[in-house]
């Protein structure tokens, strides 16, 4: 009785095995297709691998170039600031001389007025002095020159202020450099995962972004001052809150 049960169990298992083989036969073409597909993808993967390798090796050069742009603009900005400072100093000197000339002319006019006052009965004396000095025209000239110098000074200051763009663009370039060096790092590890060799920069093209560099990725050259309006509003709100806290603290102590 027990032998019959064991045999039945064996036949059941053989039946399962047969089903498995039948199912396996159906799977064979599918596996074959997968293997064929994998064979076909090998050249494609090699292409991807090579592309990544090429792209990755170019990144340090791009990063260097961006860094060079930043350094060059800083040097150029310093040179412009040197020139602007020189011109501003000259303008200040001219302004000082013009003001001195203006006060000398005023003193001269006062002297003429005194001289004219000494000869009240002789109108010709006054006319001779006034015509000879022609101080009114000179006064106008000096005044207009002072105004022109003021205008040039204002222009110089505007140039200086516009140079803030250098700091802002330098931060934008640093941000881009940070981004592309991160991409290089990701691509390098992807390359290793794909079985390729880690890319090596060409000699002299190694680029490492210093950990010390600090930048604002959202830096913008916005002359509308919209952010300043926001800052002023928040500062005013903060000031009210602080004052209220101080008042509350004062009453709490009493």
């Amino acid at each position, binding site marked *: 009785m027990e032998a019959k049960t064991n045999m039945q169990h064996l036949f059941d298992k053989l039946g399962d095995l047969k089903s498995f083989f039948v199912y396996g036969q159906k799977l064979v073409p599918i596996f074959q297709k997968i293997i064929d597909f994998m064979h076909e993808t090998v050249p494609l993967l090699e292409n991807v691998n090579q592309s990544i390798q090429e792209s990755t090796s170019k990144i340090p050069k791009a990063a260097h170039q961006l860094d060079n742009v930043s350094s060059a603009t800083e040097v150029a900005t310093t040179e412009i*600031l040197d020139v602007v400072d020189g011109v501003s100093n000259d303008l200040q000197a001219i302004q000082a001389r013009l003001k001195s000339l203006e006060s000398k002319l005023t003193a001269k006019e006062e002297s003429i007025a005194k001289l004219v006052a000494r000869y009240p009965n002789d109108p010709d004396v006054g006319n001779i002095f006034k015509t000879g000095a022609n101080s009114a025209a000179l006064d106008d000239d000096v005044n207009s020159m002072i105004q022109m110098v003021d205008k040039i000074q204002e222009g110089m200051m505007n140039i200086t*202020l516009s140079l803030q763009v250098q700091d802002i663009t330098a931060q934008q370039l640093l941000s881009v450099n940070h981004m592309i060096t991160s991409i290089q790092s990701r691509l390098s590890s992807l390359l290793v995962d794909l079985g390729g060799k880690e890319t090596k920069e060409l000699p002299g093209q190694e680029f490492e972004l210093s950990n*010390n560099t600090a930048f604002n990725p*959202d830096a913008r*050259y916005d002359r509308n001052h919209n952010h*300043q309006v926001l800052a002023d509003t928040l500062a005013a709100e903060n000031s009210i809150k602080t004052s209220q806290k101080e008042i509350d603290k004062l009453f709490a102590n009493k």
Partner: protein
Amino acid sequence: MALKFLIVDDSVTMRRIVINSLKTIGHESFVEAADGREAMQKLTVDESINFVITDWNMPEVSGLELVKAVRSNPKLESIPILMVTTRGMKEDIVEALQAKVNNYIVKPFTPQILREKIEAIVITAA
């Protein structure tokens, strides 16, 4: 009272621009530092500095860290600090104000804005 400014910025260009702007509005006394660490050293050594103008994004010690360091130092805590930075997002401004900067300027600035903020701080402090 004459103000002696400590200008803190890692950009040489920006330090020159801030100093030139301060000169146009009548100030004459300046000390410079390239980051928060150098600024703290100068503040500790030079007791005549009575106003700080600082950038935010700087290597080593940032402007915000400088503000916190100054505010937690009993000898320096009351010194006025004006932050001049490219960071114009609301959360940045709020963070700086919470760290107790006296006022906040978003670059690019003009000498008029600089004058307004300095005067407002000086009047409040007085």
